[in-house]
């Protein structure tokens, strides 16, 4: 049993991390607001972000869900905006999705992200009304029609992978700040109350990591539901705890923590929200 990333998978993750860190630092994100950076989108397309799982004969890399999960984790880490999951899933089916020349979103009842920026909308978005989105980097519409449809398991898993990346980033941010910020003549990370917040963040993140990676390997819908549930919790609670560790600084617009929390809230609602995930997991018992 080799339940660890292979050398190729590590290299892929490193490559994507370098690309994203160079191209979406926080200043870049802030400057764009809720607009899609088309040049970046095409660059992602060229780097194989969307076509990763297409067969080589169709111009893809012929990789699988585990590789896609690692890549989406990196996207979550840097808060890469846009309907990444919908475009990735549309590669091969919607012209332009694979190479990043088209932006694709999906409406399956409930909330639709990036409706106006998208070139192609899959599903029924009739009657969509704009919502003042809590996440400044994710515009949202609400579709009044019927109950939300069954989400595709791969979409749920990749959303969970983004949550995992976000949880990893807020943990690292909290730990870095706890080592730097001094109060009472010591780094605040020397105080147990702060230590224990950070330890809790790590535990949630590592549990979510095991769940997300395993679900990517098995592609089992119940395991994917569990991964989403735990990754949502790791991302949402991780961002809250990170904000707490930052004190007053954490409450400012300046600190990037709130952006992680808001995005985590949005992702928690997308795909498979907690109540539905728990019902699916209960039904499988």
């Amino acid at each position: 049993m080799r339940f660890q990333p292979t050398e190729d998978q590590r290299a892929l993750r490193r490559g994507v991390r370098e690309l994203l860190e160079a191209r979406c630092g926080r200043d870049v994100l802030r400057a764009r607001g809720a607009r899609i950076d088309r040049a970046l989108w095409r660059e992602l397309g060229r780097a194989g972000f969307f076509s990763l799982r297409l067969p080589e004969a169709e111009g893809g890399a012929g990789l699988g869900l585990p590789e896609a999960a690692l890549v989406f984790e990196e996207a979550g880490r840097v808060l890469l905006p846009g309907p990444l999951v919908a475009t990735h899933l549309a590669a091969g089916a919607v012209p332009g999705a694979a190479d990043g020349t088209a932006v694709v979103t999906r409406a399956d009842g409930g909330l639709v992200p990036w409706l106006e920026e998208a070139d192609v909308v899959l599903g029924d978005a009739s009657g969509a009304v704009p919502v003042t989105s809590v996440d400044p980097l994710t515009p949202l519409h609400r579709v009044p029609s019927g109950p939300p449809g069954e989400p595709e398991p791969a979409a749920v898993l990749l959303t969970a992978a983004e949550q995992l990346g976000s949880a990893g980033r807020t943990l690292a941010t909290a730990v870095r700040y706890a080592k730097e910020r001094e109060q009472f003549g010591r780094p605040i990370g020397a105080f147990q109350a702060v230590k224990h917040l950070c330890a809790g963040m790590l535990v949630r993140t590592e549990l979510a990591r095991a769940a997300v990676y395993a679900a990517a390997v098995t592609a089992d819908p119940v395991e994917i539901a569990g991964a989403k549930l735990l990754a949502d919790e790791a991302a949402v609670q991780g961002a809250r705890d990170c904000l707490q560790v930052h004190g007053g600084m954490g409450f400012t617009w300046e600190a990037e923590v709130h952006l992680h929390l808001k995005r985590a809230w949005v992702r928690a609602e997308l795909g498979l929200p907690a109540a539905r995930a728990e019902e699916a997991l209960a039904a499988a018992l």
Partner: protein
Amino acid sequence: MDLTYTEEEEAFRAGLRHWLKAALPALPPRPPPGDWPARRAHDSAWQRALYDAGYADVHWDASPTRRLIFLEETERAGAPYVGANFVGLLHAGPTIAAEGTPGQRARWLPPILRGDEIWCQGFSEPDAGSDLASLRTRAVRDGDCYVVTGAKVWTSHAEIADWCELLVRTDPQAPRHRGITWLAMPMDAPGVTVRPLRTLAGSAEFAEVFLDEVRVPVANRVGEENDGWRVTMVTLSFERGTAFAGEVVACRRTLAELARTARENGRWDDTALRRRLGRLNAEFGALWRLTQWNVAEAEATGGVPGTGGSVFKLRYSEARQELYDTAAAVLGPDALDLSRAWTRDRLSSLSYTIAAGTSQIQRNIVAERILGLPKER
């Protein structure tokens, strides 16, 4: 990333499964908690059977993956857990194997593997629990013996043990961590008094141990004099390694039984309860995956159990308590009936956030050793 086992590992699993099928029906049920001598005989017989079949040393020598498969298969088959052999197999044995002399290994390891000798762990003291390094039990050198005086507490299985892995202070002048020594003490030595303590579950599974000028041969010292803290850290890394892996399998089985019971007794219609069961399904599924992740990591880095064990223990101990609280919600008023297995398990689950290092201490370990946050003092 791969979740399949190698052919060799699957062959090991198949052989074990085959053997368990034949061996288990011959084994009588484990005697109740009160009857410790009977329990000891039962656990030893099982260990002997494992020994004869060549599985006795799976906790020490085999690859971590084989250990995982062993725990998974024995749990799945409903085989007994290590029971009274816990300290010998999971603490003292690996420590002696790693730090003992050839003579010590020859003297102590075979009887542990055969189930002939039972060990207990004399680390904690009335004033030294979490702060283990503050222990005060004294050992003074007198010729070829140490003369030991002091008291230990919470010592599991002390009543039936033959040997005790004992931590003593040999140099009171040295800094706290430096003056400690690891000894193997025979429990029948003159001056050893065991007084059983009743647990909140009503049983007596641990004890106070009073030591009054007990003479322990210097030859029973494992590691150097005053080097016991380092030896202890070796012991504890084994304690936290994969010790709980089999229990996760058992918890998943219990969870499935909970769901079945809830469907039968009508509690399944309660949405909040149903969702709680669903969440536990995610928790225990992920805990199992985390175990596999930790084992694969240990295998890749040379087989030493890492700090990943602390991450696992923190979540597992809480999930286990949540599982049995949920069992109580499924049972309703029957949860107050102490003859119910789930009620007894609920009580014993309360120890999981305390024993083998409290959750607070585990969080300190995670924060300082994994995340690199500054030490408190």
